[in-house]
């Protein structure tokens, strides 16, 4: 089947969206950009294609009604099992690389370090299914984060028992993770899916009884090649894609169009990403009429929150909920990220509550965005908010308040998948290029 793919190579994460000929979203994939856009693009695309497969499974199984009532449970279990298979393969890979990298490095301790590595990975492998069990909470879905945090914990215990230096184990991990992280496992997807299916049948014995009635549609999907008919890239790393300039679109256009596809009534778009803030005005067809971005200074972008989280020793996702507990909003005057950090410490020192300061910081970031919006021509109805910061409830609250104060009642759209807006715009451009303009893929010159 023909598919159209958009890849948004952002400064923090790389996102991919796959759509079909009817412009239905089949799959979405995301990965960390890891200073290597080639890999990030390949991984995000593979992830999106995997997620597309799951969507197709769901459709195919839904049509046969073999799982009547149990479809969601089955697909969710299958997805977890698939993630586990993927994780185990990467883990095995990481073990091999770690053992190799330890070779001859630690003098007479080398053998002990290698033995500790084997033990660490044995334990990692044993506990892996728990990480992917139903309801398990993971701080991140990226291999580096999951494997890394567990390696640190288990490695410390193993090092202690085996009386080898923990630093040696850390050193080996640091040397090895990038190599493993930069591998693309695209060709192993089918194998992992089949292995995952066996696990799922074991986990859900009722479904196993239906054997072929479930296997056949899934195999049917796996046997239908997904053709990557056209790919459009956007975002900071777009020039790295192996396609001609025809395949590249600016993120302004992609965000404008993506927001329009999600909400056809969109007139104004605000995107707050990792390092820039974009205010975009689009017409009724999603065509960009004007735009403004932060210039010279990146205060008020997603990184601002990242910096504040570091200063407060909190996770990025904890900021919003903390700010929502505020009883008042402390006024933060500085528009400079670093100065805001100083103001934050100052406020803490005079006894202000963290929650109230957080509310002030969220308002400060949105005030910057309001000024960029004003520069672009103001907010018109409907208004769509996208980007990573749209996931932060305190930022959204500050935005709603400020819009109401400055522009009155407005329809404000925030999609749970808003992080994929740019990639969706890219995929829609890919679709248009082929279906409306009759183009074919061109390689980079």
């Amino acid at each position, binding site marked *: 089947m023909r598919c159209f793919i958009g890849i948004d190579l952002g400064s923090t994460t790389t996102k991919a969206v796959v759509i079909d000929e009817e412009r239905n979203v089949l799959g979405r994939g995301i990965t960390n950009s890891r200073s290597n856009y080639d890999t990030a693009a390949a991984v995000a695309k593979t992830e999106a294609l995997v997620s597309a497969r799951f969507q197709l499974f769901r459709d195919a199984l839904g049509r046969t009604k073999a799982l009547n009532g149990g479809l969601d449970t089955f697909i969710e279990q299958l997805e977890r099992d698939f993630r586990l298979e993927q994780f185990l393969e990467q883990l095995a890979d990481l073990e091999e690389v770690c053992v190799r990298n330890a070779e001859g490095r630690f003098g007479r301790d080398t053998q002990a370090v290698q033995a500790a590595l084997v033990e660490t990975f044995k334990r990692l492998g044993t506990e892996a299914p728990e990480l992917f069990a139903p309801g398990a909470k993971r701080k991140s879905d990226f291999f580096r984060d999951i494997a890394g945090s567990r390696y640190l914990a288990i490695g410390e215990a193993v090092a202690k028992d085996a009386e080898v230096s923990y630093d040696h184990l850390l050193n080996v991990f640091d040397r090895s993770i990038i190599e493993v992280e930069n591998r693309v496992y695209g060709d192993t997807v089918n194998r992992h899916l089949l292995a995952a299916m066996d696990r799922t049948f074991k986990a859900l014995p009722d479904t196993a009884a239906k054997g072929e009635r479930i296997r056949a549609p899934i195999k049917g999907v796996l046997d239908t090649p997904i053709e990557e008919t056209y790919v459009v890239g956007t975002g900071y790393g777009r020039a790295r894609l192996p396609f001609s300039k025809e395949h590249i679109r600016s993120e302004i256009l992609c965000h404008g169009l993506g927001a329009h596809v999600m909400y056809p009534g969109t007139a104004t778009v605000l995107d707050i990403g990792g390092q820039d803030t974009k205010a975009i005005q689009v017409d009724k067809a999603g*065509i960009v009429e004007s735009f403004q*971005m932060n*210039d010279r200074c990146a205060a008020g972008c997603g990184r601002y929150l990242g910096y504040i989280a570091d200063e407060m020793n909190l996770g990025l996702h904890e900021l919003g909920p903390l700010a929502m507990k505020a009883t008042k909003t402390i006024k933060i005057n500085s528009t400079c990220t670093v100065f805001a950090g100083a103001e934050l410490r100052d406020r803490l020192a005079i006894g202000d509550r963290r929650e109230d300061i957080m509310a002030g910081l969220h308002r400060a970031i949105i005030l910057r965005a309001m000024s960029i919006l004003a520069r672009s021509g103001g907010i018109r109805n409907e208004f769509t908010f996208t980007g990573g910061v749209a996931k932060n409830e305190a930022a959204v609250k500050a935005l709603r308040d400020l819009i109401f104060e400055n522009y009155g009642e407005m329809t404000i759209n925030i999609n749970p998948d808003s992080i994929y807006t740019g990639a969706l715009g890219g995929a829609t451009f890919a679709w248009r290029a082929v279906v409306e303009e009759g183009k074919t893929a061109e390689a980079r010159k």
Partner: protein
Amino acid sequence: MTTNQPTPKPAAQPGKPAASQVQKEDAMWLQKEMINKNYHDLAVAHDVGRKVSATFVPGNLNELLMCFDFARSLPETNALQNGLRKKSGKMIMDAEREGHSEDVCTYVKADLGMMQAGQIGPTGEKLPVPDVLVLSYTGCFTFMKWFELVRQKYDCETTMLHVPYQGDGKISENMVQYVVKQLKEEVIPTLERVSGVKFDIDRLREYMKESVNAEEDLVAVLQSAKNRPSPIDGYFGGVYYIGPMFTAFRGTPEASKFYSVLRGEIEERVRRKQGPITPDGEMTEEKYRLVVEGPPNWTSFRDFWKMFYEDGAVVVASTYSKVGGVYDFGFRHDADHPLESLARYCLGCYTNLNFPQRIDMICKYIDEYQADGLLINSIKSCNSFSAGQLLMLREVEKRTGKPAAFVESDLVDPRYFSAANIKNRLESYFQMINQKRRATAGAATAH
């Protein structure tokens, strides 16, 4: 306002790829010689007994200064030449160390930094201390402060010509007479006293006749961009074309020769339907035609230009190429009314126009040059002319229906040119034009 590249003219090197050499029109090489000669004339002026004047580009009274045999220095040009030669960064930091804030106009700081380091000019020759500062005030308040600082340092004679702002968008007879009166009673007597040369109005008339020749040719060159493809870039190329006219050469036979050679070259390009010459050779495909407001960035001039021609964008008209005199709506120096025409020249400079006039001018350019839209390069350290640019942008968008975009950089402070960000915005802008064009074409087919 004039530009020339620090790279020497490459000798013919058979077998070497042309791409490694900077490509220029013949007139540009000629201009480089003129500019270098002027710097040399300045360097030796005091040795040969010549007095030296310093004045600013907008509203420069070159023909008048020539009547008193002054060697002529233009501080903004010195700053931008130093910017092009990548020398301004250090000068600016030196000036900041002396107490000039980060927000001060970077032309000023480059000039002050150059003075601190011994007045070594862009070509490596020492520039003289001016004998007179001619402050022709045409809309930039900073000019006054700048010369105040120079006067403080060198204790040199200063004469000010106050040119009234075109607040109502027109030049009244009163305004002209006000300027003429100052010329007669203040400026000319001072120049006579400093130079020791008696003013001869017939000499002024002769220079003005030369000016008119050059002005005619310059206008023809700038308006050649109405052709498709445009044979010139009216912004990046434009700054070369305006060089002699806006500086120490207007009214000289060299300038007349320069513009006649240039016009010949450009007319030949029109006949051959050729695009503009860029540093990487001729631009072969014209995809976007733009009007630009605001000066270019000088420290990354070539990189900035490249972002345009690489994507097939040509600037067909710019307001910056009118900063030292607006000629394309009919003004010419007039030998029959020399002082009045000096007054009208100063009053009509782009820097002295009000917002509605600037907006009208841009809209007219978009229409007459069949441009796809307006791009503003807003200058961080220029408070006088960056103010109001967003309002201009909005108004132009509204009136023409053409898309506009906004980038920010600086004149000669290398710290304020963020290439990745600017490129990102320019690419977005070009694609936006493309998308709008397709939509318009689609709508036209649908009807």
